[in-house]
């Protein structure tokens, strides 16, 4: 998958989790930009990404993600 394809899937996941079909995310989007992005929704994001991309994350690697771009990069690294 290209980074763009991963990004599109991640956008879908964000829209599902935050129940907002119009949500636009960019690499720099972080928890301060989305009001409902709290620790519980972070868990839901990670759980959905694991399912969608059929991979398992380590708690340490998902705990230090600063923004959407880092999430996408992590997924791409794990797919390689």
């Amino acid at each position: 998958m290209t980074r763009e394809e991963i990004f599109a899937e991640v956008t879908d996941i964000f829209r599902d989790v935050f129940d907002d079909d119009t949500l636009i995310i960019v690499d720099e989007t972080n928890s301060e930009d989305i009001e409902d992005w709290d620790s519980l929704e972070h868990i839901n994001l990670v759980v959905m990404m694991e399912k969608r991309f059929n991979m398992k994350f380590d708690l340490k690697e998902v705990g230090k993600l600063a923004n959407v771009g880092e999430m996408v990069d992590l997924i791409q690294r794990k797919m390689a």
Partner: protein
Amino acid sequence: MNLYSYEEIEIGQKEEFRVEIKEALLDRFREITGDENPLHRDEIYARQQGHKGRVAYGMLTASFLSTLAGVYLPGERSLIQSVEIKFAKPVYIGDILTVTGEVTEKNDTYQLIFLKVTIRNQNGEKVLRGKMQIQVLGEEAA
């Protein structure tokens, strides 16, 4: 009280228990929440609305999901993260409810279990259905 660890829990695992809805439970729920709606406290009003008696608070029925997670599945190590429910049929005083939870999914990263939950009355009718997401705390945290 059960004390399942995350590793001990398997997909498909089920736990259930029964509870009788007594008048005193409705009265205590009213006291706690301040929900004075006559459907739950006024027999005549409830009958006028087409019910066979006072209707139990939906949230009272749902409160037994707390018991399902905290006492049965996983039990002591439970930390409820979310509950999604639908109230399918009314519950009345004297109903005997069977509360059931079945593990449909697990997530190893966060040690989560996902339950399909159903509550049925003594006639086997589903009065509540829904989903729960529960974290199973580690030994040191429990």
